[in-house]
């Protein structure tokens, strides 16, 4: 398998301001006070790869840094540290404003959560799909029209709908527009940020199957961000679980969901409602996540909410350790391991 995207120790910190305006900060600097502002560790030292033709799921609760990571990878944000390599091209060096006109811009495209919100309301479906083609592929006139119609057809969007505005389309049709404009320029990697969150189950099925079919047809890789674990289980080959800016567990989707090793993943899997509930007592998380502002580098991010937490978790941050294809950042992963061995 060839590696398509190689993410190495990527971090993204945001200044938290600390309640100080620019003038107050300047004064503080003059008076010799601490110059550095508190920082939100949105993404902290994350490494992973996406292979060609692979679908990787990214799950975690809101505020865990999924979106920051995705925006950093798609180069809508600049990295604080680390490297992002797409094939043999290093992406993290160029500022995001310059990268917007880069020839490799077309290679990573994104499908946003709600196409009703993310498509320009004054653009018809045709314009929405044509815009990236005009900008990145410099297509005009007849060629442009042909390409737009070809992609619309591939995405199951009837051609007579191309002249409509987003508000004149149904949720499923809008989702198709969102997908069509992302694949129009022929990307290698498609980043999907909860593409079906706004859809009903009946429509969700159709869109998921469309995504599956497009992937087979064009050999794209997907990074699929979602908090619907039952959807991730169906669509993804591998899954990354994030908690407060860190990847806490990763591995083949089936294995992670059937034998989660990290206590957070266990709670996450246990919280998914099942059609046929077995009535087993479910693991519950109590409390709120720790603050992402300047977190103590020696304390496990999950400490305080973790049912397994001990003093060791307060003094050493657990590193990601490999157990076959399965990686987990927990001191106590071994306790759950026998189950994995028994299963394999």
């Amino acid at each position, binding site marked *: 398998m060839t590696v398509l995207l190689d993410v190495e120790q990527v971090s993204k910190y945001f200044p938290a301001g600390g309640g100080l305006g620019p003038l107050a900060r300047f004064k503080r600097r003059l008076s010799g006070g601490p110059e550095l502002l508190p920082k939100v560790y949105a993404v902290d030292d994350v490494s992973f790869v996406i292979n060609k033709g692979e679908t990787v799921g990214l799950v975690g609760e809101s505020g865990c840094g999924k979106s920051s990571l995705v925006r950093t990878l798609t180069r809508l944000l600049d990295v604080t540290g680390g490297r992002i390599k797409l094939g043999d091209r290093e992406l993290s060096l160029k500022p995001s404003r310059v990268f917007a006109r880069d020839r490799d811009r077309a290679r990573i495209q994104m499908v946003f959560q709600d196409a009703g919100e993310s498509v320009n309301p004054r653009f018809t479906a045709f314009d929405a799909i044509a815009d990236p083609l005009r900008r990145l592929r410099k297509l005009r006139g007849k060629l442009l029209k042909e390409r737009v119609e070809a992609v619309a057809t591939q995405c199951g969007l009837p051609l007579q709908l191309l002249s409509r505005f987003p508000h004149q389309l149904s949720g499923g049709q809008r989702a198709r527009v969102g997908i069509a404009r992302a694949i129009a320029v022929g990307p290698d990697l498609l980043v999907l940020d909860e593409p079906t969150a706004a859809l009903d*189950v009946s429509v969700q*099925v159709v869109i998921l*199957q469309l995504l599956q079919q497009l992937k087979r047809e064009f050999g794209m890789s997907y990074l699929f961000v979602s908090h*619907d674990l*039952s959807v991730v289980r169906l669509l993804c080959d591998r899954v990354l679980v994030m908690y407060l800016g860190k990847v806490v567990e990763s591995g083949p989707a089936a294995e992670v969901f059937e034998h989660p090793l990290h206590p957070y993943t266990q709670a996450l899997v246990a919280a998914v409602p099942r059609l046929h509930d077995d009535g087993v007592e479910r693991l519950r998380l109590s409390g709120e996540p720790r603050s992402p502002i300047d977190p103590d580098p020696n304390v496990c991010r999950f400490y305080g909410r973790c049912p397994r937490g001990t003093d060791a978790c307060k003094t050493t941050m657990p590193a990601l350790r490999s157990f076959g294809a399965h990686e987990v950042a927990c001191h106590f992963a071994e306790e759950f391991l026998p189950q994995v061995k028994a299963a394999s």
Partner: protein
Amino acid sequence: MISAPALAVEGLSVEFRTRGGIVRALDNVSFGVEKGETIALVGESGSGKSVTAYAVMGILDPAGRVTGGRAMLGGLDLLSATASQIAEVRGRDIAMIFQNPRTALNPIRPVGRQIADVLIRHGNVPRNKAQGEAVEMLRAVGITDPVRRAKAYPFEMSGGMCQRVMIAIALAAKPSLLIADEPTTGLDVTTQAVIMDLVNDLARQMGMATIFITHDLALAGQRSARIVVMHAGHVVENAPTKEIFEHPRHPYTSELIAATPDSAASLDELASIPGSLPDLRRADLPPCRYSERCPRKIDACAQPLPHTTFGADHVVACWNPLPEKAALAPTESAA
């Protein structure tokens, strides 16, 4: 279980006047919820779940009009009651949790005060004791450090905490009926599980009836004793939860189950539901609003909808319901 219904909705019909014509949003909707029972209203968006709740609560949009039916709460018909009668009942006997806690809470009033408001108006709590009671309510819904949190504004709290505050407000006056309209949409699964546990536990403790509105069939199955499936303003099936998953009789219910991601082992096995909701403004709306999407359509479908009963309490509005077991076949062959 006492079988006196906490709420009985009979033949509820609601219309909306719009520029494009009259939308017949609800047509002859009937269901009941018993004391201490939790039922779920399930359906896709546009099926009329929320409109049903709004009609019962008397908070329909001004363009909406109840054109028929009754909603009996004890001896009071909520649909024909006067505004002041409803204002007495609302908050005291029926309470509602809304979908988006951040927008449903008053943004410029501390959350403790918002709970105290309900206690003073409906809970017979004297003004000077209300704030203390409000803090206790916050404690009861599992908010840590409730004394400090009572002074917080909604924007200072996370979505999960705002939803707990909403629950505290709804339960402040110990209502006999709680309507929860998608209470966990937009929350993380882990928070969702905790919030739903909280609602279930409090309902059990207080012997409260709960109507739980959701589009998530799996969640409904886990949390309610009975499921009422709605489609385009009709109740198509109403049965105990176990019964509805094991022997769905209405074709729509069966397809809804097959479309739920949890039901399949792989993506290819998931079945989509062909077609979409009919336009409810149409004058020639067929008696069965599902018939145009239905794979089991027969000639009888042109007649007014039947209400066939299977067993003790399994009601189906279909002329050609699925036979027992047969509906399970697609899921079994999938596994």
